[in-house]
């Protein structure tokens, strides 16, 4: 699906000669542009917590919402509304509103990966869903995907380099996407993969990148564990709910054979039913908001690993060429060619971008998990609070009747 994931070093040259501006400057220089303008932050509610909101004034706001189903003779698909508000001069208008489908997002991602090979491109939600298991047009699925697509675009729009990418501009503003160019490029990339495969071997990966790789492996493993635990909880909870509903029914059928206790027992049944509803909400939240974010992060880790791999390749290419040049130099005393130096520049640029993106990714991750886990705690608290309120009102009902009884006894 994404051949550019294997993007070899030579493909970068292709994009360079293609005239696409490759941002090689450090993120800081790009971010200075950000301070010029300020915009209302009404589009992004999470903006307050964003670690970059304080240091970089944002001037590009993107939202994905309003999914719509399109039924054509050939296919059925969903489009999402992509709204943009910006003060950047790169855009002709301050506001845009276009409709895009998943394919278009995919196109954008491939374009970004091609044109900014040194950067971490955020992941898209999984394209392939198991047919029959997941209904692609169900409200639940579309809602989850919408959130993931929104996150994807927001991550790009917040990135000091990626947000200036010309393809993003096109994606956000063009009436129609001309994707043919992209497809042509795809095949080219495919060829170059074949050409370079089995080229150079990396001598020694610097320890900091090894640490990154190790971190990503372990982190991905931990997320897998959390995912499994959460699924297990959801399963236990759904079985709990089944039994709980049954339990509630017993109270209501008992109520039918009682006189004095009829209301109290009905109250119990009502309380249990209410508790079930609160628990259903909580379970739904876990499966629709918590799990997708976990899975998105597993994909995000994959993207990060990809960048690491590409960096290794650029180092390998540089080392290979340097070695060859050194051999040549010893043989016929030719100076080290400019090509080798260009490879070195490229590698260094890769390293710098990767480090900056790594920091950004770490910071995003911290922010996202803080939000995700706090959200989980909040949902659990909410569920308990609802439940507590229910039982408290039942006690009031039961005690009122008791005092009533005592009153009539004394009378």
């Amino acid at each position: 699906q994404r051949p550019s994931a294997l993007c070899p070093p030579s493909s970068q040259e292709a994009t360079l000669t293609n005239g696409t501006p490759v941002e090689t400057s450090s993120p800081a220089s790009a971010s200075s542009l950000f301070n010029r303008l300020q915009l209302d932050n009404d589009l992004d509610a999470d903006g307050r917590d964003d670690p970059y909101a304080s240091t970089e004034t944002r001037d590009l706001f993107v939202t994905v919402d309003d999914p719509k189903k399109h039924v054509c003779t050939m296919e059925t698909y969903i489009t999402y509304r992509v709204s943009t508000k910006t003060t950047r001069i790169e855009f002709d208008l301050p506001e845009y509103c276009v409709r895009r489908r998943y394919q278009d997002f995919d196109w954008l991602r491939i374009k970004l990966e091609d044109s900014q090979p040194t950067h971490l491109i955020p992941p898209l939600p999984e394209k392939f869903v198991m047919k029959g298991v997941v209904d692609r047009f169900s409200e639940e699925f579309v809602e989850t995907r919408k959130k993931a697509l929104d996150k994807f675009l927001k991550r790009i729009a917040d990135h000091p380099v990626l947000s200036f990418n010309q393809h993003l501009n096109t994606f956000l503003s063009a009436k129609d996407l001309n994707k043919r160019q992209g497809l042509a490029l795809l095949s080219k990339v495919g060829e170059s993969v074949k050409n370079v495969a089995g080229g150079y071997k990396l001598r020694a990966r610097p320890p900091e990148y090894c640490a990154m790789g190790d971190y990503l492996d372990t982190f991905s493993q931990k997320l897998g564990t959390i995912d499994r635990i959460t699924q297990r909880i959801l399963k236990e909870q759904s079985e709990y709910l089944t039994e709980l509903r049954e339990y509630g029914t017993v109270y209501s059928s008992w109520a039918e054979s009682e006189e004095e206790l009829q209301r109290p027992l009905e109250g119990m049944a009502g309380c249990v039913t209410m508790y079930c509803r609160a628990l259903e909400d909580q379970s739904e939240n876990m499966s629709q908001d918590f799990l997708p974010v976990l899975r998105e992060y597993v994909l995000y880790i994959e993207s990060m690993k990809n960048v690491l791999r590409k960096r290794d390749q650029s180092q390998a290419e540089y080392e290979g060429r340097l070695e060859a040049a050194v051999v040549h130099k010893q043989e016929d005393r030719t100076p080290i060619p400019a090509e080798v130096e260009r490879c070195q520049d490229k590698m260094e640029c890769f390293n710098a971008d990767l480090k900056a993106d790594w920091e950004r990714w770490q910071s995003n991750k911290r922010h996202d998990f803080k939000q995700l886990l706090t959200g989980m705690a909040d949902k659990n608290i909410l569920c308990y609070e609802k439940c507590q309120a229910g039982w408290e009102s039942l006690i009031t009902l039961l005690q009122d009747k008791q005092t009533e009884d005592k009153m009539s006894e004394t009378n």
Partner: protein
Amino acid sequence: MVQMVEEGSTLLCRMEICVAEAEKRSGKNAMSMQETFTAYLIETRPMDAVAEGRNPAPDSLWRRYSEFELLRNYLIVTYPYIVVPPLPEKRAEFVWHKLSADNMDPDFVERRRVGLENFLLRVALHPVLSNDKILYHFLTEEHGWKDVVYETGFQAKADSRLRALSATFRVRNPVKRFLEMKHYSDQLQSHTSQLLRARARVADRLYGVYKVHGNYGRVFSEWSAMEKEMGDGLQSAGHHMDAYAASIDDILEEEEHYADQIKEYLFYAESLRAVCRKHELAQFELEMSSQDLISKKQQREELATGIVRIFSLKGMTNKLFGQEAPEQREARLKLLEELITEGEESVKEKTVECQEHVEKAWVDMQRFKGQKDRDLREALINYAVMQINMCKKGIQVWSNAKECFLKM
């Protein structure tokens, strides 16, 4: 303790009763086989002494569960019109699987101690049962009590009653309100047992949900080791998840008390039905006697008038072999007369007995109904309080965890 408010001069007005402790013992049984059993220490103290503030040391004696059983059986036979309070279960039933079903399990023994005390208090509070001499004996004389019980001869009565109760018989003219009460006792039994079964399953599942959360504790702590800024927050959040998983043990332990309260009424349903069955038995016996009397009276009429209304073998033989001698007829008439007088006596007696049973039983059933409504309402309130505490605990743990997450 279940609060019981009852007027009248009950034993509990005169005496403070409690089952103070339980002790595991072993000894030889009647078959001189080694056995292990639990003995319960009953402590009593006269109320007037307590009121005067003398606070004397309580009288105490040990009783086994089987002795409680004997006492209860005696009460059931002696007071057939009373809904006798049930004993706590002999073996743990309707438990969720994590709970031990062992008779010697300390938690089970403790819950049984509470149940036995509850039984004694209920009996001692009962307007009729509390004045029973055998009960008093049970509470105050450790030795020789069994002999006194057996001397009452209740067992012989019990045996015939038991046989009659287990036999199937149909009452011709059932009393409607007793029929309804019997129907109610069946319903009470089925609803409470369904409830207990459902509750055990709910407890099982809830246990699972909580315990699986403990895994978050483990993974958060492992994850925290590889983080810098997030590490501390994650680590402490992990501890809170561990605490969350552990909190379910106490919650469910406490909930067993509610189950015990429901169980008491499951067994009460049996007592209630027994009273209804005994009423039916009395009614049945009365009907049988009246039937017998009617047929005897008919025989007398036949004999006196010589008209056989119903075809019978006797009528046939009479027709075939001629009438019997007048003397014989006289003798038979006389015998019949005697039997009829006897039967009339017995019917009268049984009518009174039946009437009495109906009246007394009805009174006690009404008392039981009031007690049941009060107790179960109380139990439901307690259950709701327990649920609220569980919610509060949950809110507390998640709030703590949330604070940790916010620090990340």
